[in-house]
């Protein structure tokens, strides 16, 4: 069973006090981002990771590479080019028909071989159903460290190590995790935590092809069918430009209509805190926070929301936050940009009307 696995990555016995890497580990260089795609679409988290990876690679003075695995043909080649446009210096490509739909075994084998061959020092994946499935398998095969669901990545220049920060204990605390005597250092990052980098179609670089040592007969798990989700009518919070969110301070489910009204005028999505979702005022797809969606809108309006840390971690990446709360000491005022201290039930309708008028004026002027 285990003999079939590729050789583990080089490592030094743990527990050494010295942070100086031995030469074998020093050979691991460069930052890699696994480019995840399904049904012909790259998951945006991959581009977000390239943006973050660019910063890490520049700090280290090394190359940033994308890794694309999939069926041979135009789309996968295009994904490689897109990786370059989003900041990669080059892109590795494993194109094989057995990689047509994501499956654990062939993707694990391909990525493991690629890592052992080219030896990157950092490998980043999205914390998605695909990324977590793959990352856990690859890290175990390589016998290296993997930090889950990071919200912040940085380089400790003393030892060129990756410092990966992630929320813990329900988001009440953060912890920073390092992988000392093992390479590559692996981490997964949740979608929408990192900013989307600008796309620059003038960028170019090499696409490096690598073979997959596996044929269909060797793969035990078969994909019988793929049933795409019915996305029509489903809220798409993570990618909304504007979100109006309501919390328990709205008191009654009927009052939540005030949030919907403002959202309609702004062309916004509607978000909510966990208690509101648990009370069934809105669909659970709309929950923002630690155990809900992470969002990065241009504008986030929070009405009757206290600003608990579990909510904050899901929305503090918004460009502009407006808070409406009747308690001047509410935590949300500590990180909102604008605040109104007052009753949401009267402020929301006034805000809806004012936005309606001001947008109409701006339209005329423009």
């Amino acid at each position, binding site marked *: 069973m285990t003999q079939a696995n590729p050789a583990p990555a080089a490592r030094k016995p743990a527990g050494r006090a010295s942070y100086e890497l031995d030469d074998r580990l020093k050979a691991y260089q460069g930052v890699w981002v696994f480019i995840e795609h399904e049904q012909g679409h790259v998951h945006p988290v991959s581009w977000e990771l390239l943006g973050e990876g660019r910063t890490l690679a520049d700090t280290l003075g090394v190359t940033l590479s994308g890794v694309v695995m999939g069926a041979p043909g135009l789309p996968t080649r295009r994904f490689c080019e897109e990786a370059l446009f989003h900041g990669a210096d080059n892109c590795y490509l494993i194109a094989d028909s057995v990689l047509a739909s994501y499956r654990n075994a062939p993707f694990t084998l391909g990525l493991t071989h690629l890592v052992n061959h080219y030896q990157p020092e950092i490998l980043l994946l999205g914390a998605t159903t695909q990324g977590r499935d793959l990352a856990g398998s690859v890290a175990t095969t390589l016998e290296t460290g993997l930090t889950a669901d990071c919200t912040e990545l940085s380089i400790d220049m003393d030892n060129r190590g990756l410092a990966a920060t992630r929320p813990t204990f329900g988001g009440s605390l953060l912890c920073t995790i390092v992988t000392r005597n093992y390479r590559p250092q692996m981490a997964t990052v949740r979608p929408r935590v990192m900013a989307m980098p600008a796309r620059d179609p003038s960028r170019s670089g090499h696409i490096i092809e690598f073979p997959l040592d596996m044929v269909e007969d060797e793969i035990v798990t078969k*994909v019988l069918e793929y049933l795409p989700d019915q996305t029509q009518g489903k809220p798409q919070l993570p990618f909304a430009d504007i979100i109006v969110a309501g919390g328990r301070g709205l008191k009654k489910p009927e009052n939540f209509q005030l949030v919907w009204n403002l959202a309609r005028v702004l062309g916004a999505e509607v978000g909510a805190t966990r208690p509101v979702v648990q009370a069934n005022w809105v669909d659970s797809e709309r929950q923002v926070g630690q155990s809900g969606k992470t969002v990065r809108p241009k504008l986030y309006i929070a009405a009757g929301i206290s600003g608990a840390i579990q909510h904050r971690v899901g929305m503090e990446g918004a460009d502009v936050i407006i*808070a409406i709360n009747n308690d001047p000491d509410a935590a949300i005022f500590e990180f909102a940009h604008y605040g109104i201290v007052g009753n949401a039930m009267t402020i929301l309708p006034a805000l809806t009307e004012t936005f309606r008028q001001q947008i109409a004026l701006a*339209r005329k002027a423009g």
Partner: protein
Amino acid sequence: MHIVVCVKQVPDSAQIRVHPVTNTIMRQGVPAIVNPYDLFSLEAALQLKDRHGGRVTVISMGPPQAEAALKKCIAYGADEAILVTDRAFAGADTLATSFALASAIRQIEKDLRVDLVFTGKQTIDGDTAQVGPGIARRLGMQLLTYVSQIDTLDLDAGNIRVRRRAEGGVQLLETRLPCLITMLEGTSDMRFATMENMFRAARYQTRIWDKDAAGIEDTGKIGLKGSPTLVSKVFAPKPLSRRADIIDTESHEPRDLALTLVGKLFTQHPELRDSLAQQDA
């Protein structure tokens, strides 16, 4: 049929408090529970047993107190329980945890062949979702994560069909046994413990294995020594230095407040005004 379900005892996170001054976790008095996600997997295993017969063995790695979590599983209807406990496991990250659990499962196999292993999707404390894939890899088993439904299990043919949640859709997968499954949350409600099983749990003698009983020879692969990752610091989220610009007007009237706010917003963020103006009316 023999199913092994991995369960972890975790602190009830809804009741965890962080000390406001020292930023340490106040564990005292926080009840320990079976990781809620593991119950979806245990329930799926028990349903397979209801339909096909066989044995469900639950296994946990943890301190001696973790036996309580295993007894709970016996009360729900599991047949056997094994607690893998040893000081040498302390400080394990997911790589070391999957090593120890995989090794223990190999020992269980010596007694009765294992057809299926279940783990939870993730825990509510470590919350990495990495241990399931790690065990599958180490045992050379097929891995089926985020399963929302088990469609068919054919023990004679030795194969199973499941629905797996993927990004943007659902995969219908078929694979051969043995395999490792992690169930998605909300797939079914945990059954109630029957009186009979509760009595059984109270009397039940959990098997306690140390590292030797779990078949572990290489202590370099367990505990702190076998863990590539290291928690270098734990800290409270930075209070952001900014405080909201609190909008106020002489009248305190909602209309005036709203007008002042929107005016400020549009002046200081003209890009927002422009994109709103460009939206379809």
